[in-house]
């Protein structure tokens, strides 16, 4: 660790390399997801398939999307429930 790295560590300031890596990670989440238009559609179908074991989902009122906040990428799924199955253990 050299002087600058030590200073960064003491002041809690991230090195520019760490900032670069973090930004890259996030931008690639978005890039990779948006390259394929069927990507989110596929995830949506899979989520509905799993959740349907437990409750009845209104597919037409279900939205899956991806957005990013400052420091993370978020996958958001809003599923409208029609009914919950009775005998689930």
């Amino acid at each position: 660790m050299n002087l600058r790295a030590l200073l960064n560590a003491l002041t809690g300031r991230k090195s520019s390399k760490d900032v670069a890596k973090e930004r890259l990670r996030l931008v690639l989440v978005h890039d990779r997801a948006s390259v394929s238009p069927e990507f989110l559609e596929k995830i949506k179908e899979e989520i509905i398939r799993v959740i349907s074991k437990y409750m009845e989902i209104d597919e037409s009122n279900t939205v899956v999307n991806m957005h990013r906040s400052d420091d993370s990428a978020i996958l958001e799924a809003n599923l409208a429930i029609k009914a919950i199955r009775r005998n689930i253990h």
Partner: protein
Amino acid sequence: MGEVIVITSGKGGVGKTTTTANLGVGLALAEKKVVLIDADIGLRNLDVVMGLENRIVYDLVDVVEGRCRTKQALIRDKRYHNLFLLPAAQTRDKNAVSPEQMKKLCQELKEEYDFILVDCPAGIEQGFRNAIAGADQALIVTTPEVSAVRDADRIIGLVEAGEIKMSRLIINRLRPDMVKRGDMLDIDDILEILAIELIGVVPDDEKIIISTNRGEPVAALNDGSPSGKAYRNIVRRLLGETVPFLDFYKNQSFLSRLKRIIGLS
């Protein structure tokens, strides 16, 4: 049967042409028969990096349009055994070549040469698609910068979606002093993000500019330059040898090396 290797990157100016020239010279010095194809139509550059710009008669478009035989367009580099350049056309439009024509040409060259290196244009348009059309392998060049790594990720996706069976990464213009300071992405950071096999790391080196000025690729000069050594190592890896990666951190103090080893930095 020869191997067709495309050198590509997405982002412009990261070192594709320099890499193509140096690997070509390195392979020729290893007694392989090599053809370099400049697929950057309209922005011909490989000829000047190789120092062969005064010997061009025919070009890639002349070959695919049948105005000359392939052999007539190949410029022999008299300094090495069996190194040839097929220059790009300078004035014609970028769509003068089709992926099918490129495939056919690569197929023809593979019959006679051991390695065909294709210098790809920047971008992901037609020129890129032509350049990768006949390739068996891809070498993806990036620099340790956010935009270059991002574009490399895109290119890796496109290459993997096609017929190319193997793609490996070259990290170019690494500056160990900046990495040490925490001001440049390190090799491990880039590999973690891109999840691709590494075939070489070339340091940022002023010798590259000096040798390009003279039209003599550094891989040919045994002057101890770190970039020349890095290119020769990539050549050996292309030929199937296992060669340890150069240690760019050898000037570090004992303490910082120790910390690196025990995982403190």
